[in-house]
């Protein structure tokens, strides 16, 4: 039987760095199967898929689609061959309707020139029906949830009659429930005759969805396995090249416990918006604890992050830091007061990609390198080298930040913020998109800070992470605190129960916080 995709001996070397992102990789995709392409950050998964989708040209190697060998020079050519790719970051126009987004670039025409909106709607509705999606073709994309936007991206590919679909980390931005429904969709697609490749590094997802798993490490293909024949531990070992325990060792904190950051009935109301973005939120973060915040996207965690970082002014309530009122401080004031902050959006908030690594590292501490207005280059250089070393960042001080891999960018941000920390630190989605080794490193550092008496605020959509690390957990639903789980309750709480709080099915009685 011929394969849907057969890649042989793919070599891709990035010019400039000389990095062999793909080093003689073979990949087989059978028809109607779901294949997970797994590996650590920087293992070369995305590069391999970019080669398949015509976004990168391989330095050597061959690709055969449905048994015919063919070079692929562009995504358009890939589409023509029946290959589609859904990127990690959506490429949609918020103002356009679902149908208009789907047909973009391949619009049905009437009289050759005019855009046929009626046919557009009909055709897209048909695709949506055939594959049992639950989106309204006439709704503007801006009004959809993240999960629905992803469905639009998939429909976009199906509309183009794609029978080989690549999804780059499709679950990274989804909630547990959305992931489940995505998996239902993907299984249905496979049953319909589509062959799928999922790039992922989440072990339980590999087990849940795939027929086979292909594992890459450092630009090479380690091998492919029938998913039933390997367990999570084995996959992890193959990805990492060594056995790593996934459990986190947490010691009890015996130091002084004092309130560091305190929210009292904090609300954020925006004009023209019925529901407050934050509604009377109260909590206190103490020294020596990790206070976890959980919630489904769009329920106020992002707003909380913006408030903590001084990006969004609050309309009501007070925020105090060590007893001092900081309710109306902006980012610059907060920084002066010793705020350390790891933002969720590491590319557009946490770093300047065209600036050098050194310049990125000193942004919050820049004043300490100044002598009569002049920056001490040597001291910056030395400090940078030490930090890159301590945090094992693969990169040099003078390299532009944008040339580093995602994991290394995050490490630079972590290094900067952890060094900047005085008594409290905010982490928002700190391990989003990081591989296991890097995530463990972040956890270790976070616990180290806590053991040294820091008030750590952890905002994360990753429940495993929240449950494993937090000393207390606050759950948000529609901008309010619906539950505060104390240490003793955390021992018994299940993910299902947390899910019920997060979806607003359940809420704690009595005053919160």
């Amino acid at each position, binding site marked *: 039987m011929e394969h849907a995709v057969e890649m042989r001996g793919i070599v891709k070397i*990035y010019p*400039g*760095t000389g990095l062999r992102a793909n080093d003689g990789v073979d990949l087989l995709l059978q028809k109607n199967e779901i294949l997970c392409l797994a590996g650590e950050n920087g293992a070369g998964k*995305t590069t391999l898929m970019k080669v398949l989708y015509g976004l990168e040209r391989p330095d050597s190697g061959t690709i055969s689609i449905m048994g015919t060998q063919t070079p692929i020079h562009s995504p358009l050519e890939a589409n023509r061959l029946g290959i589609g790719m859904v990127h990690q970051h959506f490429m949609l126009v918020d103002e356009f309707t679902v149908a208009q987004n789907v047909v973009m670039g391949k619009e049905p025409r009437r009289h050759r020139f005019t855009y046929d909106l009626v046919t557009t709607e009909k055709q897209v509705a048909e695709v949506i029906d055939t594959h049992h999606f639950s989106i309204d073709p006439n709704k503007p994309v801006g009004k959809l949830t993240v999960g629905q936007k992803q469905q639009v991206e998939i429909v976009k590919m199906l509309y183009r009659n794609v029978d080989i679909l690549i999804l780059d980390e499709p679950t990274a931005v989804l909630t547990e429930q959305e992931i489940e429904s995505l998996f239902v969709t993907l299984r249905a697609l496979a049953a319909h005759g589509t062959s799928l490749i999922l790039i992922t590094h989440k072990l339980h997802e590999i087990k849940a969805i795939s027929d086979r798993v292909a594992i890459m490490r450092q630009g090479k293909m380690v091998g492919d396995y029938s998913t039933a024949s390997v367990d999570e531990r084995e996959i992890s070992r193959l990805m990492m090249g060594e056995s790593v325990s996934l459990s986190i060792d947490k010691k009890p904190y015996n130091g002084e416990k004092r309130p560091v950051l305190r929210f009292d009935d904090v609300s954020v109301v925006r004009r023209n918006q019925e529901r407050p973005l934050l509604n009377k939120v109260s909590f206190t973060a103490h020294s020596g604890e990790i206070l976890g915040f959980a919630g489904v996207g769009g329920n106020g965690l992002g707003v909380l992050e913006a408030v903590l*970082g001084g*990006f969004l002014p609050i309309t009501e309530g007070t925020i105090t830091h060590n007893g001092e009122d900081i309710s109306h401080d902006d*980012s*610059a004031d*907060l*920084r*002066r007061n010793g705020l350390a*902050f790891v*933002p969720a959006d590491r590319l*557009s*908030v*946490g*770093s*300047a*990609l*065209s*600036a050098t690594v050194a*310049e990125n590292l000193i*942004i*919050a501490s*820049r*004043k300490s*390198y*100044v002598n009569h*207005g*002049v*920056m001490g*280059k040597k001291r910056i250089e030395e400090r940078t080298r030490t930090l890159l070393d301590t945090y094992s960042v693969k990169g*040099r001080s*003078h390299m*532009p930040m*944008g*040339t580093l891999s995602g994991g290394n960018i995050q490490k630079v941000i972590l290094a900067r913020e952890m060094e900047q920390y005085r008594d409290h630190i905010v982490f928002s989605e700190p391990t989003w998109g990081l591989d296991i080794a890097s995530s463990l490193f972040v956890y270790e550092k976070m616990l180290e800070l806590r053991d040294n008496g820091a008030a750590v605020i952890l905002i994360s959509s990753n429940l495993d992470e929240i449950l494993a690390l937090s000393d207390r957990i606050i759950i948000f639903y529609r901008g309010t605190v619906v539950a505060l789980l104390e240490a003793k309750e955390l021992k018994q709480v299940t993910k299902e129960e947390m899910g019920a709080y997060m979806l607003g099915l359940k809420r704690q009685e009595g005053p919160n916080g």
Partner: protein
Amino acid sequence: MGEERKRMRFLPAKLARNSVGALVILAIALGVLVILSLLLSKTPGKTLRYFFLGPLQNTYYFGNMVNTAIPLIFGGLGISLAMRAGSFNLGGEGQLYGGAFVATISALAFAPLGFLGGVLALFLGAMTGGVLAGISGVLRMKWNTSELISSFLLSNAVVLIVSYLIAGPFMDPETNLIATGKIPESLRFMRILEPSNLSAGLYFALIAVLLVYLYLQKTRSGYELRMFGMNPMFAKYGGISVHWYRVWPMFLSGAFYGLGGGMAIFGTYYACMKEFSVGMGWNGLAVALIAGFKPVAVIPAALFFAYIESGARNAMLHSDVTFEIASIVQAVVFFLVTSSVLQQIGKKRRVL
């Protein structure tokens, strides 16, 4: 140490890579010039010879060419400062003209103060340009008004007002020109390459380039300005004052234009003539674009622009083409530098 040496070795290669785009643009512009000469001139060979070699044939022409570049260097620096902070200053025309005017009348008023009066006049000229551009920065900061539009509109108004002032209250009745009186001889810059017009203003221009370079690369404020320009969100997150860096770079940018205007008066024109500076503001913008907003690269870019201008003047004197040929070539350059595609040629693609 080894690492440092390796970087030094790669520097020329990097420089070449970064300037490929600019060189392609210059080649196309000069190609257009050759074609125009072939089409428009009866003696294209002669025209081209005077165009290309004229500015270099003797110290007189060469000095005049370099002299033309001086205000362009100031303008180019001004634009670069604004652009590095992510602000657009399209008001160079008015800022330069206004700065020149204020510098002239201040020099006339402060003549009794001697040297100090000259310094004060140049300072006030710079402040005039700075305040004009700064207004756009303040509007941007307060109400998020596009500084690109407001600086352009404001500048157009200023040009008219200054022209009125020169033709009206401040006109020197003793000359037949529409111009202010001449600044005292003691304040005029020394000629440094007789018999040409090249003045000591060149030294100031070179010092200004050095200062801007040091400011951007070595000082804390320069660092903050660059970070703000590269990613305002990141700058805000890092605790940099967003308000300040909306206004300050615009102010600096206008101040350099204003200073450039003052330098043109003190070094070359001595009196502020009506509309003497038409085009200098825009050419400053083009120079900055060619230079990729790098202060040091502003020098060759300004010289190139001046070269085209004096080449055309030469060809006009000795052959049968008009001065407009320079405007066309400059327009082509302007048009091409704004095409970011060409600018990106040879630059390393970002590896994600």
